[in-house]
């Protein structure tokens, strides 16, 4: 096996890892602040891809789709939080999980009604479809390079937002002690609402970014959702650095396994999870005893 194949595969793994990172970040901020495990996250990812398909079919612009997908899914997230999840606060922590599970079934069926059950071809814009040559040996598909850089930028923006702005400060304080934040006169409901919207928007963004490199069909989020749960469990529930590290790690592990021993490709991430949990029960960056 020569070097360029391995480098290429690592590169593919990195771009897959970036999708994991986006999804897991969304899951993690929602979980960290609202203590809601969003089972509809996979379906929101799928809707992001379908909004992309829809926008490109009507306008032909990938860049517009790149804005519409997170915007559309983010707005949808705001509606879901306001009308479906908010009534469940204060009840058993499992109820939002059950509700979003039911919601994802409905979302998948609705997509089937409007778009059918088959695959939808989705091409990257022309400017991103040629390979980039590096040192004359490596040819990286430009779209994947774009995906990696773009996700990196999103992570940086998110980091800046959470660590350097006033609103981010309130959000971080809300993760620690919502009651105290409320006592200081801040409307936590609005913060939760906003954070659920941001998390959903990230899922939608991951969906449109995934559309050109993975197939677009109504069940595309189902397997992805479980993989992202694995990412958040490995990284530590609710931990943002954990989500980033674990997402990239799993992307790399999964694509290297595809190269060496393809039969194990689907299984290996669960094995990694089992090993991590045996060594560090609360995940790589998790705090022990969180939300048990």
């Amino acid at each position, binding site marked *: 096996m020569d070097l360029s194949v391995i480098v290429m595969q690592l590169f593919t793994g990195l771009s897959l890892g970036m999708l994991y990172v986006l999804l897991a970040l969304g899951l993690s901020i929602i979980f960290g602040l609202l203590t809601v495990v969003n089972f509809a996250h996979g379906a929101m990812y799928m809707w992001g891809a379908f909004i992309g398909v829809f926008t490109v079919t009507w306008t032909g612009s990938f860049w517009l789709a790149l804005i519409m997908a997170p915007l559309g899914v983010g707005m949808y997230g705001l509606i879901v939080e306001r009308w479906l999840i908010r009534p469940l606060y204060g009840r058993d*922590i499992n109820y939002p999980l*059950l509700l979003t599970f039911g919601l994802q*079934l*409905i979302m998948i069926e609705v997509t*089937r*009604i409007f778009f059918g059950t088959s695959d939808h071809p989705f091409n990257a814009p022309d400017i991103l479809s040629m390979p980039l040559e590096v040192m004359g040996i490596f040819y990286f598909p430009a779209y994947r390079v774009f995906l990696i850089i773009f996700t990196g930028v999103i992570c940086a923006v998110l980091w800046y937002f959470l660590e350097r702005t006033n609103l981010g400060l309130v959000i971080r304080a809300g993760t620690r002690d919502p009651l105290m934040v409320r006592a200081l006169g801040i409307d936590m409901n609005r913060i939760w609402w906003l954070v659920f919207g941001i998390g959903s928007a990230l899922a939608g963004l991951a969906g449109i970014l995934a559309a050109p490199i993975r197939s677009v069909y109504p069940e595309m989020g189902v397997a992805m959702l479980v993989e992202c749960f694995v990412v958040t*469990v490995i990284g530590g529930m609710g931990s943002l650095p954990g989500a980033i590290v674990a997402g990239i790690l799993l992307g790399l592990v999964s694509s290297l396994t595809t190269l060496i021993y393809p039969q194990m490709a*689907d299984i290996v991430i669960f094995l990694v*999870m089992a090993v991590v949990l045996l060594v560090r029960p609360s995940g790589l960056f998790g705090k022990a005893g969180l*939300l048990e």
Partner: protein
Amino acid sequence: MQTQQAEVGAGAPGGAWDRVVDLVSRYPVTVITIFFIIFPFVVPYKALATQIIIWGLFALGYNVCLGYTGMLSFGHAAYFGVGAYTLGIVLIRLWENLWFGLACATFMGAFTALILGFMCIKRKGIYFALLTLAFAQLLYFLAFQWVDLTGGDNGLRHIPAVPLPLPGFTVDIQDPLRFYFLVLFFVVLALMLLQRVLQSPFGRVLEAVRENDPRARSCGYETTNVRWMAFIISGAISGLAGGLYALYLHFVGIETLYWVTSGQILMITLLGGMGSFIGPFIGAGVFLFLEDVLSAITDNWMIFLGTIFILCVLFFPEGIWGSVMKLVNRSAGKKG
């Protein structure tokens, strides 16, 4: 909890509903048995009746986890699926004996729960749900890849239609009604055993763990082991249900192990009502009946089931049976 409700029901001056609820709460096993003996003669076709009691049995096993111990598992497809595959593989490769096959299915369900429980049981709440889900997915992908043993994507086909060996003679169970009563036999057996377990001191500890784990621990109970034990019992019943399901279909599909199955059993249990014997069967009945009716009308029946489920979570978190109990108790309280 149960005795208290029974007393309230008995104290109420009447009403047919009150009496029914009272009867079911006091003698759940007898009432369920009698009901399901009559059941196949009143439903339009026996296949639906058989499916309802198999899924009811599965939900009963699941309920040991969720309803009685308060552990939300999202991976019960694993034990159901392992039971189904075990029965199929045993009948095809080892020994064409029905008792042996079902015993193996039950054992393997319990054994899988033992192993996976070891990995998950120390975590609680949402972590536990995600871990059980992830490990169940691991089993799914293993079965998917291990084509020689499981048939992979095509499923395990040609499970032989074996007769039921009884001392002295054998009974052919190809007839739907006979098969129904075979399943019912195991359901009643499981119900009786479970009632015995839940009424034992161990059963009381289970409830204590559900209500307040730290307190149960400070009373000197090894709560982790208690939960693990409940998990294994739950796995055994799920494995038995899986074995019966394989026997019923003569086939095991790969989707039996998929996490959608785990979601389905959760929906059934929640729909019926947690923490009672009758709830899971009501849930299975309503769910499968709706699926049967709706899928005849539209391909997209999942929309309706999903909506019903969401409404249930929002407005009737106690499920159908829990809501009936609440209603009866309220009216009894008014009269009293």
